[in-house]
């Protein structure tokens, strides 16, 4: 019986002067907050994408700016929202670490490059996306070498399919990828869930060794953390009510 207000956003240009929901500290946040991109936008910064999407469904915001893969996950569960065909920007996800930790960067880059060429990344991704989704889940090797000790990964488990809660476990593409990376390098992976805007400070302060949370590479972030080579391409898109 509840009907939210009619959608009024049909293109990027329509965003002008509208109320836009984002997740605090994401690239969508900085894009929406940038008056050179969208004029007079009223930005509502939620702590979780899910809350922003909920607000969109209830007509409390006019649009949500969100990464495309995640958007698709939300749309799978909600038949009253959709993405506009027009995209906002192209982005790349990468793993971030402390500015001083070039050694780790080298290690991780080596493994990522290897995974890209040997198809490991694609295999992992196919479980979450594409024609064979849900088949061939990546399995951690219980006897893997952990001689180098713990590697703490800061993430924000509200970002399907990259990281989300399944029961009491944090799962997703990023988790599988990092499990593979750690096995290769000889680390024991430990996951620390936190708010998205806490990830970079955690990495900066040494609370976490890496931040892996579908984090796009941006100039601002580069000043504060070191990024690995990107492991996937993505787009920011506009989600609206149908």
């Amino acid at each position, binding site marked *: 019986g*509840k*009907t*939210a*207000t009619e959608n009024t956003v049909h293109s990027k240009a329509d965003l002008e002067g509208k109320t836009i*929901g984002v997740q*605090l*500290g994401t690239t969508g*946040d*900085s894009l929406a907050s940038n008056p050179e991109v969208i004029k007079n936008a009223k930005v*509502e*910064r*939620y*702590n979780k994408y899910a*809350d*922003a999407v*909920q*607000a969109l469904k*209830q*007509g*409390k915001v006019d649009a949500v700016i969100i990464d495309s893969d995640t958007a698709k996950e939300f749309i799978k569960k909600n038949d009253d929202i959709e993405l506009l065909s027009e995209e906002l920007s192209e982005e790349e996800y990468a793993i971030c670490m402390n500015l001083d930790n070039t050694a780790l960067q080298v290690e991780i880059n080596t493994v990522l490059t290897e995974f890209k060429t040997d198809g490991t990344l694609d295999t992992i991704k196919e479980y979450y996306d594409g024609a064979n989704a849900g088949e061939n889940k990546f399995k951690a090797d219980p006897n893997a070498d952990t001689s180098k000790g713990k590697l703490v990964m800061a993430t924000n488990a509200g970002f399907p399919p990259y990281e989300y809660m399944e029961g009491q476990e944090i799962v997703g593409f990023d988790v599988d990828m990092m499990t593979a990376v750690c096995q290769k390098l000889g680390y024991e992976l430990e996951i620390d869930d936190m708010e*998205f*805007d806490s990830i*970079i*400070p955690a990495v*900066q302060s040494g609370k976490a060794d890496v931040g892996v949370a579908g984090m796009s590479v941006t100039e*601002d*972030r580069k000043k*504060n*953390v070191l990024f690995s080579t990107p492991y996937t391409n993505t787009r920011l898109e506009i989600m609206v009510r149908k």
Partner: protein
Amino acid sequence: MGFIDSFKQNFIEADRWKYLWDGLLTTLEITGAAVLLGLFLGFIIAIVRCTYLKTGKMKLANILCRIYLTVIRGTPVVVQLLIIYFVVFASVNISKTFVAIIAFGINSGAYVAEIVRGGIMSIDNGQIEAGRSLGLNYRQTMTYIIMPQALKTVLPALANECIVLLKETSVAGYIAIADLTKGGDIIRSQTFSPFLPLLSVAAIYLVMVMFLTFLVGKLERRLSANDRR
């Protein structure tokens, strides 16, 4: 990074201080309006409850009030805020600030009600008897005799309730309201340095609370000086 650089980055660059300033205004707006709503609700409920306790009338209204008090005082304000935002006002496109005012006002009303009820009940029953024996009816006795005295005794406690409410509104960010706390969060998410934004948010709250506490103290001294007239 030195303190000056950090200061510049967190407050000067991109006019980031505006997040704090606008957040402060939002916090004050929500607090102020919620205080008024809370006082309004609280007084009504207190009067209903006292009328029931003293005369046995308004039985049904009293039961409703007790349910309200139990539920509001039995659940966290942040859960109340979420329920009002996502459930009560679901699919109503309403200003979030308004939602917050409603939520915090309803919450505060429960605490105000108990304060005011305590104040009314603390007034000697002989005052009601004196009023009624002169032929004033219940309402007149309440209005001219009981409430003015009760108000004076509860004023400091009500002022303290404002202070509590000011601090409570810091969870407004849960529904993406850019209040003072959220203002600090936004800066934090842009500069990735938690130290200055958090401490300055804390400092602003502290200054406001200390100032209000000072006013309450003055009020209390003024009231107790009046008692000696």
